[in-house]
């Protein structure tokens, strides 16, 4: 639940009648490029989880249309038993694949990347994810318009603090619509995630992917969202740090995150 965000929406609505938005030219400086590690190990329920991908790139000019990939890195994930999973670069620059990964719930994994003479590491646990028990559809009226609202239900574990990331994918979306959830105020409940979009109409298929995430990754994603959505009222966080540590030179830190989750996917066709 992000009250700030909801209130910001209302405030934007309140100024809507007089305010205007326009795109302007602003010259920006560009900092030295920095390595970005996007290591997302996703074990989709019902698969063996052996196919995994890690992407390396760097920061670049804000207005650039592409980010520069990083090639020639050596990437290795090790489990607690010392078993190694090598990721090798594919024909797509900056993309490194592994076809023999073995996911185990609750297992600790260690990521090690050597790139440009620097060694980067991160350690995380593979999180298990509750099942989505139902998807419901409801029509609501909101500011004079009819909306279709989809709701996912799942059972929160009352014993621990949980954090979740829900993503909705649809053909009309260029990037998945994300919702970050903390169980702080819904501990142990049959909990829900709402999804609203003006483009929802009968016949459209939505694929939800839902996963548990760590507390730290929840905070990390919250910061990224704040930085990327840039509401008019928030102070964007500077240099958002993930869980990657440069073992060679702590000052030359890398951006990005190494995370592992079991993923629940469910597909729903709007009625």
């Amino acid at each position: 639940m992000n009250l700030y965000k909801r209130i910001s929406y209302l405030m934007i609505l309140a100024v809507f009648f007089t305010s205007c938005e326009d795109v302007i030219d602003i010259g920006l400086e560009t900092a030295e490029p920095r390595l970005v590690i996007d290591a997302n190990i996703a074990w989709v329920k019902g698969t063996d989880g052996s196919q995994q991908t890690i992407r390396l790139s760097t920061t670049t000019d804000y207005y650039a249309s592409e980010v520069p990939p990083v090639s020639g890195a050596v990437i290795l994930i090790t489990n607690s038993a010392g078993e190694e999973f090598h990721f090798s670069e594919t024909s797509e620059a900056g993309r490194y694949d592994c076809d023999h990964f073995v996911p185990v719930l609750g297992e600790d994994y260690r990521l090690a990347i050597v790139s440009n003479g620097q060694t980067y590491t991160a350690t995380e646990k593979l999180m298990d994810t509750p099942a989505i028990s139902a998807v419901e559809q409801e029509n609501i009226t909101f500011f004079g318009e009819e909306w279709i609202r989809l709701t996912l239900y799942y059972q929160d574990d009352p014993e621990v603090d949980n954090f979740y990331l829900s993503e909705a994918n649809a053909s009309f979306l260029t990037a998945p619509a994300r919702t970050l959830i903390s169980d702080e105020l819904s501990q142990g409940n049959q909990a829900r995630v709402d999804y609203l979009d003006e483009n929802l109409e009968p016949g459209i298929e939505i694929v939800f992917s839902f996963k548990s995430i760590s507390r730290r990754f929840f905070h990390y994603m919250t910061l990224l969202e704040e930085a990327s959505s840039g509401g008019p009222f928030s102070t964007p966080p500077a240099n958002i740090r993930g869980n990657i540590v440069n073992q060679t030179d702590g000052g030359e830190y890398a951006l990005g995150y190494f995370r592992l989750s079991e993923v629940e996917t469910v597909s729903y066709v709007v009625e």
Partner: protein
Amino acid sequence: MKSPFFVTLFIFIVSKGFSQEISMDLKNPTLRDIFQQVENQSDYKFAHDEGLVRSKPIGTDLTIKNADIVAVLTTLNDKLPYHFVLNGKNIAVRPKTGPAGKPQVSPSQTYTYSGVVHDADSQPLMGANIYIRERQSGTVTDDDGAFSMTLPRGDYTVRTSYIGFSDREVVLSLTRDIHETYELAIDGEELEEVVVTTMKNGTEIKAPQMSMNRLSVAEMKRMPVVLGEPDLLKSILQLPGVTNAGEASSGFNVRGGAADQNLILLDGVPVFGDSHLFGFFSIFNSDALSGLELYKGGIPAGYGGRVSSVLDVHQKTGDDRNFHMNGGIGLISSRLMAEGPLKKDRGSFMLAGRGSYAHLFLKLSEDLKDNAGYFYDINSKLNYKLGANKTLYFSGYQGRDVLDIGGEFAIRYGNTMASMRLQQRFSDRLISNLSAIYSMYSFTLDLNAAEFNWNNSVTNYGLKYDFNHYFSDNFKLNYGIHAVFYEFNPGTLIAKGETSSFNSTQLDKKYALEPSLYIDAEHQLSEKLSVRYGVRYSQFYRMGSEEIKQYENGLAVVFNTDFQLYEGGMPTGSTHYRSGETINSFDNLEPRLGISYAFNEDMSIKASYNRMAQYIHLLANTQAPIPINLWTPSGPFIDPQLLDQVALGYFKNFRGGDYSLETEVFHKTVQNRIDYIDGANLIANNTIEQVILNGEARAYGLEVLLKKNTGRLTGWVAYTLSRAEQRTPGRTPDEPGIANGDWYLSSYDKLHDISVTGSYQLDDAWTLGTNFTFQTGRPVNFPNGQYEFDGISIPNYGSRNDSRLPAYHHLDFSATYIPKPKKQRNWQGEWVFSLYNVYSRKNAASINFRMNGDTGNNEAVRLSIFGIVPGISYNFKF
């Protein structure tokens, strides 16, 4: 500002001529003309009391050729009804008529001369001047229009004056203690032309109080504003040293201070939420007010609890003789105020209401009829004389904002305030005020879609006992004792319905008691030197019942050296404190000092120092305050903010107060300014200590205020050059702190701030007004690159607040039209036309960096709130 002003300024700077031969040939000159001639041609200077009328023609022509000063004075003594006496390089001027010379006194016989000054509607006039001609000294009325002084037995000429009112002069024969009531009439009401009277609007030269501005409601109403809604908080932005975050943002920043560091008082009751409609308008209905003072520095010991400024707003006191109403109809809201006697000459009431009605148009639309959005205010003030020396006052306020979107989303917020005050006059020298106050701010959010209801609030109960003690003309003491009890509800979450996925939750309520006592002396040491000194001793007790968590090493926030970021600490246990039990406490001694040294009647320098403590903090990490207004008390993990401010000023009146100049420099530091770790969630957070770091802030600057106080054209130019910074260094060498522990610009830093405000009375019917504002854009973050993560483009930001928005400026006009101004009627109306942002500057409220959903390219998007905005309103009174 026309040339005479600069000529005067030039003369002041360069000093006067050296020729001792004086010539003049003047047709029916005024005293001022004569003074100017003599002072320009010699190094003699006229000394006279403030009440001397210098702008009236003397009724005869004056010709002097190459005469020395003695000959000049002989001629003047002959021709004019004044005594001119040479005394060194000064020429003393005294009227010949009236009670001449010093009164016959035996020093042991002194009496108290006290009284009250009010306007035609029995409204007490605060800050009115009481001037005793024969003694060339006087006093100023207090909040209730009361004054008191001790004088030897004798006959006196007393002049009473107040900004915007005609002066009144009476002859007083003091042979016993006297208590008088003076009524002043509004300037120009009976008079055909604008009368220029001496000194009445000039800057205060002798009083040690500096860094203080007064605004009357009349001045506020003349200023052009958005949509023609007179607005106190927007008006004070025209003063030097005062800015805010921009259009449609609540709060204000004084001398580089944060919005939560302003103590806003409405009839002595602290206000926690100052705005309607997310900052478009302030909660102050101009019809219900009489005026305000803004203290930016040198704050007297009677005020405490906030470190940046005190905005003391006064509600109008009702007329105790006749019933009146006034009101206004505007585009956004309408106002109505009624006042009249409760019992003639015994007591009166004032009741005012204001409501917006834009939402009524929503009802006209079939699609939008389920939505509501409005605000209202109700102001009231009652007073009743219980006896000759006892008066009871009641002040009340209630205001709400409601925004309801189809029953799915609804928010309601606002203040409820009340105070009861018993004023007692023990003698003509000792007045006491005993007040009980209540203030509550609450914010409610109904989110039916998510099946929950949220509420948070801050409640304040206060008791104050204040004394004003007059010892002599030269010595006055104010002292008192205050106690405030706070109840903070950081949040109540109520799950609605069976299926709500939320758990009903009550976040830990917090309680605190803030007792304080103060003594404040106003002491005139000599004709030239005045001081105001005092001290406030404040305490703060954080009290149970509350469960306080303990942390490893006592650190609620820890630094993760691996990932180089701040995180919440690990609780190791908790301690339960019973109701009323002290959790921890603070106390501070807050000395205050103001000194003024007057070189002469028209020029002085002043200096001040004040230390202040602030025990409560607004939790906000947004750029502009939002209406949820979460306050939290100091306690085991949050220290009180401590301010030290010094200011130095130069004050000068030109041409008998027609023009005035106030220049001040200030420097202040605030210890324990709270800062937040990146991504801190402040709402519904029961362990707020896990996201707070204690930092510090500082600000310094120069303020210049040039005013034209009299004539058809009045107004001012205010310029502020300042810097506001803060830093949060690491607590250990391993920690970098926030932004590497370096000083960074506060988000309300404005390097340059220029405000021009003018009002021109064209004729009896038309008055024109204008405002111009120019400010350096506020500090913001611009990205220094981007990267891709999980399929989204993330702008990467470098250090905090290292870029700036484009400069913010706009020009506004207003015109006030009074139809048939001379006709004596009961009904008086006026039209106010306004044009805000005349050249339609698109001022950036923010610049956001985001990916264009259609093109996939990154772009910078400017959000601007107002283009050119016309406004019209109609005001009436009867």
